[in-house]
């Protein structure tokens, strides 16, 4: 896609006019955040315990599990979308729940996409905590839980990075949410399952480049803001 320079005034006009039906952009932002935040929260709740368990003990097949997770980081999102679509379709095992073209289905597919990077990066961070720090916590009288908490705390930057990476993957992902969500708005133009990414894709295809670029700007600002908040929280932790 190339936007000619002459369209700059139009772009400005679009920003001022906001030629959108009321609630169009805000509902899209809401759907994007709702789906990504819930999916990433669920992923984190699953990933961190898995990463701790894998970081703390050796078991048969650990390397295999690791390579499965690493492969998961590279899952093509459209394939995940297709798999989730089969899962929730009428004939699928979750058919009775009628989840096709719903936010719930989008959450499922984003959960599948975000979990591998969050687990893998958290695991690397946890495994990177020096063995001597664990020993210290243990010999100072820490229980297994205390030692795990120390390791989590030492690995907090890496874990924050992991969650950010998962969030980044979820919110900027197009393929699977398009397949399972359907990019739907209701008759009054309010987004039901339309996210920033699928909206951008649609607007660009229809030649609405200004709209697409504004939505792209919103998406960038969102991602930057989330990053800034997490980095700031991490910095505050240092003095403790």
């Amino acid at each position, binding site marked *: 896609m190339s936007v000619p320079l002459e369209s700059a005034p139009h772009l400005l006009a679009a920003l001022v006019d906001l030629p959108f039906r009321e609630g169009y952009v805000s509902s899209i932002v809401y759907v994007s955040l709702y789906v990504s935040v819930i999916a990433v929260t669920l992923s984190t709740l699953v990933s961190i315990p898995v990463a701790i368990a894998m970081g703390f003990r050796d078991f048969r097949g650990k390397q295999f599990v690791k390579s499965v997770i690493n492969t998961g980081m590279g899952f093509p999102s459209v394939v995940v979308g297709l798999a989730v679509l089969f899962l929730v379709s009428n004939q699928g095992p979750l058919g009775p729940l009628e989840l096709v073209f719903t936010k719930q289905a989008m959450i499922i597919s984003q959960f599948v996409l975000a979990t591998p990077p969050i687990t893998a990066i958290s695991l690397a961070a946890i495994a990177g905590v020096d063995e001597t720090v664990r020993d*210290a916590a243990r010999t*100072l009288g820490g229980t297994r839980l205390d030692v795990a908490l120390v390791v989590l705390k*030492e690995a907090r930057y890496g874990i924050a990075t992991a969650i950010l990476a998962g969030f980044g993957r979820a919110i900027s992902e197009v393929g699977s949410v398009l397949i399972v969500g359907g990019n739907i708005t209701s008759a009054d133009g309010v987004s039901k399952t339309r996210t920033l990414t699928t909206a951008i894709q649609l607007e660009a295809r229809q030649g609405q480049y200004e709209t697409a670029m504004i939505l792209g700007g919103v998406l960038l600002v969102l991602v930057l803001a989330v990053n800034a908040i997490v980095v700031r929280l991490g910095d505050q932790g240092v003095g403790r």
Partner: protein
Amino acid sequence: MLRATDVSRSFGDERVLRELSIGVEAGEVVAVIGPSGVGKTTLLRLLALGLEPDEGTVTVDGTDAWGLDDAERLSVRRRIGMVFQEASLFDASLVRNVEYGLRVRRSWADRLRSELHSVLRSNGTPGAVREALDVVGLADRMAQHAGSLSGGEAQRVSFARALAYDPDVLLLDEPTSDLDPRNTAVIEGAISEARSRGIGVVVATHDMHQAERVADRVGVLLGDSIAEIAPTDVIFENPTDERTRKFISGELVY
């Protein structure tokens, strides 16, 4: 007080310790000397109850620690402190580091309450933390972050961290091998202070002069067992074991 009796320990096919016995009483400093690569660290880990012996027993006040259940062994383990060759401080302030041992001994409700307190306003530093940091000469810097310390200072904090919860026994694994003379002197002073408080100290070192300076008794670990253990002056002036004599005089080179 803390005693290993006839302990053996192997890692895979390699037998590191064989039927070794050693003990420490309250207010006594025992040095374990021996060349690098013998099982000094393994011996200390056995004494710290972090490693189970393949054979033999580790007893605390006559109780076999590995005959206890996990909860009972934890409470026995909490009477022992250990300082490693590397300081391995937590990524936090000196206070947070040194109070760690005290913190994990409190109930969860108590810990949560004091965490909330420390967020709302700065609560006072526990006396034991200040005292322990004072022993290693760092009480005036306790608000600093551990990352801002030199290696020697970090090791001193590591010592204070083990001293703060007033253990009955302190195990020191080559505590000064990476340190300059000044920091070494501070650590050796802290060892004397621990002894005067009635703490039993076991210090593993490859520095014979340090053993001579700080220890009441010295055990010489050669190969996989203690060649001789005796009062310090006996070991250095009149050892009965031939290999000990050769090791002390520098003839026995590993």
